[in-house]
């Protein structure tokens, strides 16, 4: 369907509204704390990159950024990789316990994290993974793997089953069919799933901070420095907040063509 002028205007207005709070965050990060508190200004009066340099020059912040990036990346890869065959199985076959299992997966997204933080700590301490990125990777699998299965299942369902049958008749083995023919067809779903897994792991703070202490301290934990006894460091928190948007923005930029890819029934 082609877009007319009205949808374009609606979309642009939405984007502008959405950007205002983000602009406010960027503006705050460029101001000093006194400037932020002294009154309403649309532009920073004395723009300064001071807080960005403070973060850049502090090894703790830089290390924490790397830690966060690594567990999020590993988690995203694991979640999407194990969810793909499962999503295919749930959509294409019936097997004993399939419906119960599928719904049970979702129930793992419902746990109020605050209550589960302590048991998680005990569990990972007992298996010796405490304060390593693997603890966070595994803990985040609890919600990201089910999420990935659910989203991907919806996209697998969008592919007509005739495609699987035609490929089998054409003599494709299952692995070759799955990787060469099927995965490209659900590229939209894989792109959006990868982004959501990345995003949910990236913004999760409670488990990530509970399961780490010094070696694997995530960026979110270092951020709590902004709340100190001497008062709230608004501009430091804002600068850190601006920096946290960057990796995810790159992720969605790299998967943009997959998400927006049109569905062409090329082979059939």
């Amino acid at each position, binding site marked *: 369907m082609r*877009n007319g002028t009205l949808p*374009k205007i*609606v*979309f642009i207005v*939405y*984007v502008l509204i*959405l*950007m*205002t*709070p*983000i602009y*406010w965050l960027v503006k705050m990060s460029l101001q000093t704390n006194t400037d*932020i508190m002294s*009154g*309403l200004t649309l532009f920073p009066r004395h723009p300064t990159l001071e807080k960005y340099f403070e973060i850049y020059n502090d090894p703790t912040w830089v290390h924490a950024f790397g830690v966060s990036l690594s567990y999020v990346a590993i988690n995203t890869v694991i979640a999407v990789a*194990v969810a793909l065959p499962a999503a295919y*199985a*749930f959509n*294409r*076959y*019936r*097997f004993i316990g399939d419906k119960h299992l599928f*719904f049970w*997966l979702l129930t*793992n*997204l*419902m746990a109020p994290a*605050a*209550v*589960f933080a*302590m*048991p*998680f700590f*005990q*569990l990972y301490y007992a298996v010796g993974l405490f304060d390593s990125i693997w603890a966070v990777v*595994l*803990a985040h*699998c609890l919600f990201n793997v089910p*999420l990935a299965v*659910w*989203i991907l299942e*919806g*996209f697998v369902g*969008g592919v007509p089953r005739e495609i699987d049958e035609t490929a089998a008749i054409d003599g494709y083995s299952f692995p070759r069919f799955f990787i060469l023919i099927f995965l490209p067809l659900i590229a*939209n779903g894989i792109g959006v799933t990868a982004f959501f897994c990345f995003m949910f792991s990236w*913004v999760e703070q409670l488990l990530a901070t509970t399961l780490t202490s010094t070696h694997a301290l995530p960026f*979110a934990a270092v*951020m709590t420095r902004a709340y100190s006894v001497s008062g709230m460091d*608004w501009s430091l*928190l*804002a600068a850190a907040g601006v920096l*946290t948007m960057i*990796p995810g923005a790159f992720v*969605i930029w790299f998967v*943009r063509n997959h*998400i*927006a*890819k049109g*569905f*062409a029934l090329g082979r059939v």
Partner: protein
Amino acid sequence: MTEKPLNNRAWFFVLPVLGFVLFSSIIPVMTVVNYSVQDTMGANSFFWNGDQWFRDLLNPATTIGARFNDALFRTLAFSLACLAIEIPLGIALALCAPRKGWAVGISLVVIALPMLIPWNVVGTIWQIFTRADIGLFGATLVGTGLRYNVTQEPISAWMTIVVIDVWHWTPLVILLSYAGLRAIPDAYYQAARIDGASRWAVFSKIELPKLQKVLVIAVLLRFMQTFMIYTEPFVVTGGGPGSATTFLSIDLDKIALGQVDLGNAAAMSLVYYLITLTVCWIFFTVMTQLERRRDV
């Protein structure tokens, strides 16, 4: 549509998923169940308390029961308000979003930005943004003559949390719907064009049914997240003014950490969990039935 083939070997495809999820779910869940039937005097001494926590909780005549009841309705109202705004808005904006050219990449990145900000920072942005003296949002509303004050007016506080949630999470619905829309084969649109179908017919007969699965996920996710909302109200309003924005998870947190009442908190979180579960199960079952009926 023919029935799916029965194939128990499909279990092998599912096993890795099961392994990863079970590892992190079984033991923590059992620990919480264990807490919910015990009382603690601190110092790791627990004694059996049976179903007393649950009975108190579900009886509105007790203090804790009344409190739970209030928080529950507040949270349900909040979830429904957010869903009622975000789902239609998300679908509409996904339909408006550009499909080709340079604007696609930029639009997707911009839409994704709010979700990428850690939740406490989201709260902090809005805490400043809604202040009448130094925030654009607050200043604008007060400038138009509204009695807007997040820290003193319960209605302002409640509406602000809804606005924040809409700002924060409508992008999730847009992205899911957008990817879902792009996954619809062109052949469907061509057929509709040949039949001379109206824009509305294309939407209600092709796009909406094809989006159903994706929308079910969007609704379930949004329901679970809004029902568990914690960080934003905690940072922006602290649950106040009064108890206007004391949603379930904030109340739970006050009991678990503030009063170190682990038994009560665990019982509360189990009841809370069962409510989420029931709502999701009903919604999911109804939607699956609808889909099956349409396919036949």
